[in-house]
């Protein structure tokens, strides 16, 4: 059993939320049970709802605030929020110009958000959906719609949020969110497992000298399990997989934002070494890194490891990425 600083596992999510809204009262409030809304609701504008299971903090609650999301629907650990929570989040985010639901492409999230979207329609709230699919390890090229969402979530949230904030209409926010999603490619590597509170044991086991390239943010299996290697070699495999995918999708080297995301237990020392290796590898392949993010953006509880995300940039996406934001996670 991994050691945690929690109380009853069944209370963990609610206690976290209590702490969260107290700590960031200037930015957020508890809009409904399991729904984080902005302290000062914005609008009229397109609403942005983000959400998913807990255990990925600062996703999803850390993206609620001016410039990004209007509300986050919070599920149990690694479990999608129920449709009632999703519906409450939609209500909290709605100011009459429609709502975009942005979440990672997981069966549970799809089922619950889809149902909520139908229920919202019955209340007169138009919802659109973007399912984020940046994890190149989760399905081969050509099957992009089967892919999972990992740290690319934060880029898509930022782009969609900035578009909504400046007053774009729902079609336009959807278009930009889809562009951002299509522009993202990510891959993770896990070094050590996390544990769902109450599960009694870690989600998976890795040998003392093993890692797994391509593992998902809930411990979903990856592309290859192998021996722990120096960071440069691990990054070579990771960026290699991203570049193979870019090629398969006929994306030519260009300007990108580069995100190195810690999964939970990995030190900044390591993350910056990974960043350095990834940047060198990408630059050697002809890419230009013009925006960089290093830190914890979409975690997997206390999993050890990191993910690398690139987002291809053009003026449109860059402007949205650079637009001001004041959430607990993103302050730009």
């Amino acid at each position, binding site marked *: 059993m991994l050691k945690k600083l929690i109380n009853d596992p069944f209370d963990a999510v609610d206690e976290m939320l209590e702490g969260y809204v107290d700590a960031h009262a200037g930015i957020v409030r508890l809009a409904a049970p399991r729904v984080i809304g902005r302290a000062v609701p914005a609008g009229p504008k397109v609403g942005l709802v983000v959400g998913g299971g807990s255990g990925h903090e600062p996703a999803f609650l850390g993206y609620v605030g001016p410039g990004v999301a209007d509300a986050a629907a919070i599920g149990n650990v690694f479990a999608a929020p*129920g449709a009632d*929570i999703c519906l409450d989040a939609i209500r909290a985010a709605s100011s009459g110009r429609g709502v975009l639901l942005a979440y990672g492409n997981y069966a549970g999230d799809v089922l619950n958000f889809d149902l909520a979207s139908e229920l919202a329609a019955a209340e007169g709230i138009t919802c659109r959906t973007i399912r984020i699919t940046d994890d190149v390890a989760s399905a081969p090229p050509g099957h992009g719609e089967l892919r999972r969402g990992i740290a690319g979530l934060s880029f898509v949230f930022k782009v969609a949020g900035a578009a909504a904030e400046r007053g774009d209409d729902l079609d336009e926010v959807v278009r930009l969110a889809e562009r951002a999603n299509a522009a993202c490619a990510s891959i993770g590597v896990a070094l050590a497992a996390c544990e769902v509170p*109450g599960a*009694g044991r870690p989600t998976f086991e890795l040998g003392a000298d093993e890692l797994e390239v391509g593992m998902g943010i809930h411990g979903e299996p990856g592309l290859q399990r192998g021996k722990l290697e120096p960071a440069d070699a691990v990054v070579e495999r990771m960026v290699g997989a991203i570049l193979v995918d870019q090629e398969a999708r006929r994306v030519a080297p260009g300007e990108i934002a580069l995100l190195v995301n810690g999964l939970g237990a990995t030190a900044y020392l390591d993350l910056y070494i990974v960043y350095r290796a990834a940047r060198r590898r990408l630059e050697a392949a002809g890419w230009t890194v013009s925006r960089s993010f290093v830190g914890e953006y979409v975690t997997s509880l206390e999993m050890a490891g990191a993910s690398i995300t690139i987002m291809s940039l053009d003026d449109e996406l860059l402007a949205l990425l650079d637009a001001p934001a004041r959430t607990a996670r993103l302050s730009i």
Partner: protein
Amino acid sequence: MSRTLRDAILAACADLEAAREALCLLDATSGDGDHGVTMAIAARGVRAKLAQLPADEPEGVVRAAALGMAGAGGTIGAVYARGLLAVAARLHEAESEMPTVALLASAVYRAAIATGGLGAQPGDKTILDALQPLAAALADAAAANLSMPETLARADAAARQGADATADMVARVGRSARFAERSRGTIDPGAASLAIIVHALVTSALRPAGPD
């Protein structure tokens, strides 16, 4: 039977909670390791909804269970909620509150249909691979005019066998989709939890009524 139904559901909740770590372990082999926790949270939710329920008519009890399951979220909360709401709808249509084998078979058949439309096919190693054999066993029992006790015993066995058979399957949908071969040899957690629930319900229903 409706007082019995509430008791039976409570018994199933207790069995799910007892199986928490075992179900997590199954999910860890081929998914994200949370299934037992999600089902335990669901059990709490169902118990809370039932506690709020004044009356004991079956449709209301099933609907409350559906809401309790939905509250747990996740894939499985949505799947169970959909299935149970289909059962409740069928009960609503029923002319009598008397449980018959035919009504039971029809209700579970509806649940199988309702949850079959969520992206999984039979053989994909999901809860459907326990639910569909269960529905089939009930349909067969109804056609053969079996007694309720005999029907329930067959239902129990069908769900269990369906769950066990998922061990030979390879996961193709949901979070375990990419596990492919790695998932072979382990029972699907969703199928396992359904078998636990069915067993608890059947055992409770077959238990001779005693003093309250």
